[in-house]
């Protein structure tokens, strides 16, 4: 049998395992059922007091208990849940021995106020407490060292799943999950490995992280009811809703997957990226980097805009993102843009930040496989500047072969993935 290659002569990269956890639940079945029913996972925050905050809602994952709560601890646990599901479904390797590298998209790690105050308390200073006081007693907290190294989450996951080589932790801000998948695709195409475990995870909703986004005016402040806060592409959209979750994909070369008789769940047909040099948080007004990322992904997949039947947008619900994304899509797809369904998962699960690219790639694969488009909920006031089919408020069936998943982030990050239902 001929070795399966894509049009550029590279190994075809397929998906043989999918795992996902969001505020809607753990596991792709539960998530898919709620997503296509138009359910929201956004709720009032109970993890920490929200007194004095402009935004009091989020898509936190409250049903996963963790000890010694911190963002890295929560992110690690969410990553583990998603990866367990994906690896089990793929049936690849053996327990604790995954035959490929780990690419982990994760929020930057930092110590938080609960730990900082613990150290401050141990310092026993009266009145003004400074970092000199903290440094004096830091050595009493060896566990904080192991927990708050940037590489600690990937290190632990590499140990649990037995991935090969050096695990890569990466951040391209809110495009991180897509970048993790892109790194896996590239490694398989280079022939370095037959498989890769790509995870995006984010469990970083705490007071300071929420306040940071709030101070940048990025968050919705329409707290009541919480389920209606995320309103992508609506005229009255007023920001994104922070959320937690994880998505994991087992990627394999088609050849390796076929050789072991694995079920093919979908294809990673193309990846495209382009950096934006315009501004730290805003897109270039001409949309060039967004357009470039989508076109690069199409070119990488050997496809044209006419091949695409569905778009899973970044669709955060901020005035800026949705306007610029729509501009980019209308530029790439021209008149056809109006008839390509484009629905935002974030209307229901919120913005899972570092995980979003991976979570939404997983949902896009489910969309292709099930032939059903999840809706954009909370779509009550159309924005005339965005004359697109956002699959308003109710799921519907559609026979789609190729889809695009967009992810954009602060710092000029733009990544687009092209996903296919089955190998060409």
């Amino acid at each position, binding site marked *: 049998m001929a070795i399966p290659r894509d049009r550029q002569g590279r190994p075809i990269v397929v998906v043989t395992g999918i795992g996902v956890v969001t505020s809607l639940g753990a596991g792709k079945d539960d998530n898919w059922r709620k997503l296509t029913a138009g359910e929201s996972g956004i709720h009032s925050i109970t993890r920490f007091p929200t007194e004095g905050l402009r935004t009091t809602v989020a898509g936190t994952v409250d049903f996963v208990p963790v000890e010694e709560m911190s963002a890295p601890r929560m992110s690690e646990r969410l990553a583990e849940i998603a990866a367990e599901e994906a690896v089990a479904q793929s049936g690849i390797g053996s327990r604790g021995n995954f035959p490929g590298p780990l690419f982990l998209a994760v929020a930057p790690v930092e110590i938080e106020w609960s730990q900082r105050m613990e150290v401050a308390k141990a310092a026993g200073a009266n009145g003004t407490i400074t970092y000199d006081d903290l440094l004096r007693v830091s050595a009493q907290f060896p566990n904080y060292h192991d927990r708050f190294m940037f590489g600690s989450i990937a290190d632990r996951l590499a140990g649990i799943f037995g991935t090969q080589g050096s695990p890569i*932790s990466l951040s391209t801000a809110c495009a991180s999950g897509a970048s993790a998948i892109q790194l896996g695709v590239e490694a398989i195409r280079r022939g370095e490995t037959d498989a890769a475990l790509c995870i995006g995870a984010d469990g970083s909703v705490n007071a300071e992280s929420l306040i940071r986004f709030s101070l940048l005016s990025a968050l919705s402040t329409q707290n009541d009811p919480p389920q209606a806060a995320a309103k992508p592409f609506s005229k009255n959209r007023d920001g994104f809703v922070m959320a937690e979750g994880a998505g994991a994909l087992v990627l394999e070369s088609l050849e390796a997957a076929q050789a072991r008789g694995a079920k093919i769940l979908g294809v990673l047909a193309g990846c495209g990226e382009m950096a934006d040099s315009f501004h730290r948080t805003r897109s270039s007004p001409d949309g060039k980097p967004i357009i470039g990322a989508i076109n690069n992904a199409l070119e990488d997949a050997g496809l044209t805009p006419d091949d695409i039947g569905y778009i899973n947008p970044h669709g955060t619900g901020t005035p800026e993102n949705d306007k610029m994304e729509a501009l980019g899509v209308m530029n790439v797809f021209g008149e056809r843009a109006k008839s390509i369904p484009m629905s935002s998962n974030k209307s229901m699960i919120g913005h899972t930040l570092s995980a979003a690219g991976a979570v939404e790639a997983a949902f896009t694969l489910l969309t292709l496989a099930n032939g059903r488009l999840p809706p954009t909920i909370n779509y009550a006031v159309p924005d005339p500047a965005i004359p697109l089919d956002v699959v308003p408020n109710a799921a519907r069936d559609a026979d789609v072969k190729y889809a695009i998943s967009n992810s954009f982030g602060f*710092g000029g990050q733009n990544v687009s993935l092209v996903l296919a239902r089955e190998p060409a």
Partner: protein
Amino acid sequence: MTDAARDGLITGIGIVSCLGEGPDAHWQKLMAGETVVDATSFAPYPVHPLTPLDFDKQIPKKGDQRQMEPWQRIGTYAAGLALDSAGIKGNADVLSHTDMIVAAGGGERDLAADSGIMSALPTAANRDALLNEKLMSDLRPTLFLAQLSNLLAGNISIVHNVTGSSRTFMGEESSGIDALRIALARINAGQAEVALAGGSYSAERKDQLMLYAFGDMLLKGEEAPVWARGPKGGLVMGSLGAFLVIESRAHAQARNAKAFAKLSAVMADRSSRQGDPVAPSLRAMWSKIAPGVKAGGAAILSGAAGAEPATSGERAFLNEHPDIPVRATGSYIGHAMEPSFPMNVALAALALNHGKLFPPRDTTGFEKPMAGSLTQVAVTGVGYWRGEGLALLETA
């Protein structure tokens, strides 16, 4: 194997550290066996301070500088030096397809704001409410962007217009090793033509030192060369920035670029760090380049951090190669986590470009002089806590 056109050449070096700015300043200080130590500002921890820089030279807009914390300014500055060095600064055509991989930490705090909150909370009636209130009022809105790991890359895009792609790896030393490994692999495989890879670190910060003080990892008292830190060892952190322009031989030749050295191999691994893992990990990587290494013209630049047991583990490996002279760069510039490996690869390229090795800065006699001409340099990167890496550079 890759054909010669897909070789990865180092055509640009941008480095700043306690030794100075740029390749020449570094070479002079290395040849003089000098270092710079600040023993008092962060006592009991000595650090290697960044040489004074005129940031305007690489970051012309004050507004841009204000949007960055020190590590981002250092990195954006070093990236600019690398682009200058490669002759592609301002070359919109090349920069639009330059793929960037940045190794970054981040999380630099507003120390005064933190101190105010820490001081106020213990006596507050409602600590949670006060924390929210203080964070809402005391955090500078743009501070978040100066803390985010991927915003070093973001700032490089904005200031230097590098727009091919932008990826940020995190995770201490391994992030720097993997940044170069992935950049080279993509070039070798034809997935990229030209890459800007590196990172930066500001050691002169109490919030950053605290992370390693948690693990009791920092050397206390007087600075000492890496091999002379005794059985407990210890890190001496150094502020530095290091970026490399790596490009395919085909791309470099097409624009008549001069190469400092050829980056022949970059490998990375993660041993469990149970028992005695560092030497076997290095040995396994070494076995892949060993057939091509010729004793006599080869040297090893060690990125040994000085922390134990990692540095003893590396030393066990180095002892197996008594015919190859070793230099621990940490004895000159300190240890800097994410950018350490890119910096050491830059120094290796610099030494190859000069065709000789710089003298030891070692009081133990472990580092031997090298008189002959230098044609190959292996660079080790052993994470003080996790991760191992090895690179091979050769005369271009």
